[in-house]
């Protein structure tokens, strides 16, 4: 328990240092573009693939469980939209990103620690936390864009599976996704997406930056980072849902 509190304290001290003594903009700018490319653009493929097919599966599962003829078929589209926008795109994709981008962040920073590259930055007088973590936080400001693509593709996957699978007509699906739409749900989804983006940038960085040991420990730190990033995402999801939707 004491160890966990100590780690949480260190995490917040790390955040303070990240925003302290900013690196020169001329140096920071290419770093931000590189992180956007690695973390955001590089993740689009897997996000698109998973979103499309999970959206399709949600639609099929809903259709197969709607056996009562009194329930309108448009509910398939409604259920797909709600589950994709509220939970699947922001939360499930964040867990996937914790594995994909989180492991990349931990292993790249961890390797820099092992090979003394972070010491080299420190010795030169560079604020290594700002240099390494800040560009990742800025890159993850584009994370809602990834999630909006995921939402679109999830619903598109649902439409494709529903219509071409013969479960629902095109008109019923279009009607269903427009049914009882609450704009606040979009705000809720993007609000938590911003928080998840911050967690995805900082928790893996923390585990990479403060790791000790050699190459084997880099692997262990990546696994630990994935676990704790997922835990943080799930906990924040619960808290935000309770505060905003209950």
């Amino acid at each position, binding site marked *: 328990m004491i160890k966990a509190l100590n780690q949480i304290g260190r995490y917040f001290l790390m955040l303070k240092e990240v925003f302290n003594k900013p690196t020169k903009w001329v140096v920071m700018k290419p770093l931000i573009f*590189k992180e956007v490319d690695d973390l955001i653009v590089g993740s689009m493929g897997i996000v698109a693939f998973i979103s499309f097919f999970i959206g399709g599966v949600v639609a099929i599962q809903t259709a197969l469980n709607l056996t009562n003829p009194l329930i309108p078929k448009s509910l398939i589209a409604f259920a797909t939209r709600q589950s994709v926008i509220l939970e699947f795109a922001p939360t499930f994709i964040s867990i996937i990103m914790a594995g994909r981008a989180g492991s990349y962040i931990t292993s790249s920073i961890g390797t820099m620690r092992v090979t003394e590259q972070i*010491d*080299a930055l*420190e010795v030169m007088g560079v604020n290594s936390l700002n240099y390494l973590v800040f560009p990742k936080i800025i890159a993850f400001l584009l994370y809602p864009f990834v999630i909006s693509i995921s939402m679109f593709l999830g619903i598109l996957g649902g439409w494709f599976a529903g219509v071409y699978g013969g479960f629902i007509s095109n008109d019923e699906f279009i009607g269903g996704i427009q049914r009882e739409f609450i704009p606040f749900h979009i705000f809720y989804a993007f609000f938590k997406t911003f928080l998840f983006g911050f967690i995805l940038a900082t928790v893996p960085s923390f585990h990479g930056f403060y790791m000790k040991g050699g190459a084997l420990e880099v692997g262990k730190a990546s696994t630990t980072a994935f676990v704790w990033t997922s835990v943080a995402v799930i906990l924040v999801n619960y808290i935000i849902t309770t505060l905003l939707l209950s």
Partner: protein
Amino acid sequence: MIEVKDIEKSFGESKVLKGISTTFESGKTNLIIGRSGSGKTVMLKTLLGIHAPDAGTISFDGRIYGELTPDEKRALRTEIGMVFQGSALFDSMTVEQNVAFPLRMFTNKKTKDISTRVNEVLDRVNLKDANRKFPNEISGGMQKRVAIARAIVNNPKYLFCDEPNSGLDPETSIVIDELVQEITKEYNITTVINTHDMNSVLQIGEKIVFLKNGIKEWEGNNEEILETRNKSIVEFVYSSDLFKKVRESLLAEEEENHNHNHNNDKKA
């Protein structure tokens, strides 16, 4: 000049540095030597400010490190060049970008001027046609040269090298040693090298500090080290087979000369 006074450093129960005092003069290659676990890496990291000493002071030309503000410490660090044991080059950058890094970070020089200076120092370390290569595409010796070029590109006052010869063949080691010594003289830098390579000790050791179990056991230069009768130094210097054989042959030669002179005296 770097002055170290009574520095102590512990990690938990283990006391690694036990009140070390010495000075490292500018324009000289100062060596910290000792067996593995003697505390030389901790000593170097303490000098660099990576570890804060538990007691004692370290002053850089009169500026006591522990008394500086964080901004002053950062400013001082821009005057320090460091060559790490594994070179610590940034993997994601080319050789040119690695060397240019301190200039881009701490100066307002134009890209053209940075490029000119980078080529100048790469020439100085005899490294040509490697500008666009990444660290993993060049040899260990070349990586060391790039690390030296990066360390000196911003005209540092202090140069620290952590085992600059580790992992290099003897011939390349000599080249690196000579390069470090030449640069030290040329730019009048205070150079501190952490090593256990006896070739380096004898070749460039203008000031040698020998550590044993966290204590400064001996200090002197590369001529004095061969003459000292300090038991720990003798054991350290002659621990390798090669040096043992050299010593045995020297002793045999000395004894032969002694006997020869003795016989001549008798005849006379």
